[in-house]
């Protein structure tokens, strides 16, 4: 279990003319959780989106199973679940319809019972047939999170997953994350909330320690990784 599944090599990301980070390298193996820290604007979201393949990095590569993700997009996407700031839900569709579309496109065949079970787990038993627009913010977030249980992806990338969740739901999500990591899954997440995360091999990544000029960058790391303890 020591082989690193996800490897990031000398990654550099730029927004506009501003360099967010450069020379960022780390690797992640099965059964580990990476907690990305950093102040606003340090490039946390950009890093997560770059790993998910939504942002094209200026330099460096992202490897999954020893091959760059760009070359095996479909295979990598099958292992990936990214939940960002947006819910990624169609408000006019019901929770079931929303989840069904993504399950179909991922090649997973799910039925109403599985969806109901997943939503029930997140405390939304009665919401299967309701259009998402009538739900509250927290409930919408939970519908989105239900995808974690339905699609059997190995790598979860969660950008601020605890936003809008009540205490009980936070506990619930933590439990789901722990179970996933214990099961050999991988999680990369950011959060501003004080949440006690401790699951599997825990790594921390700190972004945005020194703001750098593009030309001076290179030797000095703008991010640091603490090894698993």
């Amino acid at each position, binding site marked *: 279990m020591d082989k690193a599944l996800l490897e990031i090599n000398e990654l550099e990301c730029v*927004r*506009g003319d501003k360099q967010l980070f450069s020379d960022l390298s780390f690797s992640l193996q099965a059964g580990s959780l990476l907690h990305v820290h950093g102040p606003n604007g340090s490039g946390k979201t950009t890093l997560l989106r770059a790993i998910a393949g939504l942002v094209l990095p200026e330099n460096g590569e992202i490897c999954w199973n020893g091959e760059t993700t760009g070359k095996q997009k479909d295979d990598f996407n099958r292992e990936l679940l990214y939940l960002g700031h947006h819910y990624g839900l169609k408000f006019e569709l019901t929770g079931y319809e929303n989840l069904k579309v993504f399950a179909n496109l991922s090649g997973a065949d799910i039925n109403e019972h599985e969806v109901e079970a997943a939503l029930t787990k997140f405390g939304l038993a009665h919401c299967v047939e309701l259009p998402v627009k009538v739900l509250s913010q927290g409930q919408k977030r939970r519908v989105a999170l239900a995808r974690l249980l339905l699609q059997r992806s190995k790598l979860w990338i969660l950008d601020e997953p605890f936003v809008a969740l009540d205490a009980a739901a936070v506990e619930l999500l933590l439990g789901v994350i722990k179970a996933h990591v214990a099961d050999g899954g991988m999680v990369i997440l950011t959060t501003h909330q004080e949440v006690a995360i401790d699951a599997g091999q825990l790594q921390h990544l700190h972004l945005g320690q020194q703001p750098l*000029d593009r030309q001076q960058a290179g030797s000095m790391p703008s991010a640091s990784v603490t090894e698993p303890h």
Partner: protein
Amino acid sequence: MFNLFKYSSPASFYPLAGRLAVGFGIASVILLVIGLYMSFFVAPTDYKQGEGYRIMFIHVPAAWMSMWIYVVMACFAAAGMIWNTRLSSMMASSLAPTGAMFTFVALWTGALWGKPMWGAWWVWDARLTSELILLFLYVGFMALESAIDDPRRAARASGLLALVGVINVPIIYYSVQWWNTLHQGSSIKVVDGGIEASMSEIMLWTLLVMTFACWFYAVAVSLSRVRSTILERESDAVWVKALLKERKA
């Protein structure tokens, strides 16, 4: 061997572009003077069109350049998208205004030529319409580029548009062969590997001199344009700051 890769970084390309721009600028002015002299005084009167045909010496080079610049621009855009090189995208965007200018000139001189010869400023035949579309494509390219704030996205999005529009260039070129249009065919054709021109030799030379004048002008102008783009985009870079300090001193 000339090391291309050395000059693919903006910092080392900037001074080179400056020297090239001056060289091409001078060459284009000299050729333009010779070319214009030849167009007006050396080239003989045409047996059919009289003196009016002389507008050809600006119309044809402009039309050629309008298509050629588009192809070059699309190649730069493609290179910029494939290898993620900033300089190629900057070259593409600095070629666009010159290309649009030549398209505009080709359309206008065409209209001025068409009125006395054909009897109409404008007809909706395939050649004219496709050249007009080319102008729209240039305008669209520039509009899209300026509408996007993030320079990286701007370069890639406009580059993609340039690539989509490239399909129009062969349509312009072959329109006079494919359709029975009012516009005459090409005077210079590649036949069996050789080049055949249906005009007298001195006219052909005049045309070639004018074409090279336009070509060098396009190179000079777009190189000096790319220099200012480099300064603008790389304003944070150390070498730009050093350069500006040097200039102030």
